[in-house]
């Protein structure tokens, strides 16, 4: 019984280690699979009201003046990227080559987030000349 318990603990330990292996063992809270993030209020993306903080595994791409800022972003596999529309018009973020994923229209002041599992060239399908790039390292 004791041996069984030890084995379970060992297995659990191994699983824990392997799941964090790609992140040098650094612990961070798991992210939910849901990709939709609703702003608490229409003004919640105002700089003065909510400061969205980037961390090692959470990155923000602002959409302003018809650009993704930053246009190129390097992340770890499993990191979350949040797009925040601070522009005058609606935008989206859509995988460019095979249309593997799309945010759908992000309204003014709206947010959309995604767990990134692979590198991607993306663009705004509403304004096709707006481009961005995600690199998973």
């Amino acid at each position, binding site marked *: 019984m004791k041996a069984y318990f030890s084995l379970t603990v060992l297995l659990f330990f191994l699983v824990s280690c392997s799941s964090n292996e790609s992140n040098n063992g650094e612990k961070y809270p798991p992210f939910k699979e849901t990709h939709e993030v609703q702003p608490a209020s229409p003004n919640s993306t105002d700089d003065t009201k909510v400061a969205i903080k980037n961390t090692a595994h959470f990155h923000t791409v602002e959409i302003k*003046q*018809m650009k993704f800022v930053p246009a190129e972003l390097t992340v770890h596999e499993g990191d979350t990227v949040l797009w925040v529309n601070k522009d005058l018009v*609606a935008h989206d973020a859509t995988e460019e080559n095979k249309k593997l994923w799309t945010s759908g229209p992000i309204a*003014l002041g709206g947010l959309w987030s995604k767990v990134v599992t692979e590198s991607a060239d993306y663009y705004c399908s509403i*304004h096709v000349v707006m481009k961005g790039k995600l690199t998973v390292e």
Partner: protein
Amino acid sequence: MKKLKNTILWVACFFAVPTVFAQSNPELSDPEVASVAVVANQIDVSYAEIAKKKSKNVEVLKFAETMMNDHNAVIGQAVALAKKLGVTPKDNPVSQQLLADAVTTKKSLNSKSGKAFDIAYADNEVAYHKAVISAVEDLLIPQTDNAELKDLLTSVVPVLKTHLGHAEMVQKMLNGK
């Protein structure tokens, strides 16, 4: 020779919009600037409405949809700002000339169909956005007194430039086929 003359006339009509801004250097008050801004956006919405009725090209239709949504969004913000500032957009010669030119352009667009329409629409969008960008940068922004109205006009410029890039892409695609 007659053909050349017609071509020159046609080109002159086509680029009537830039000449409005270039030839007259009108003094505009803020309520007049607000009117020009709203009218210029409304005109592009009206071109998009024609395209949505007449075109069958997916890229042209998508572009027209973007023009409708974006220009309506800008109108909404201009109207909201005018209301906040207590400014009533005021009719003026520039707005009137823009509308008169738009009547000519719409007539020309409506007379075409199929690929000829798509090309005419894309060409006009390129020319119109170029004209409006220089009008906003060189006429409207310098003549605007109110800081918030100036800011709004300034932030519209990247939208217009992106539209121009998109229109040029559509134009290139149509000419390449």
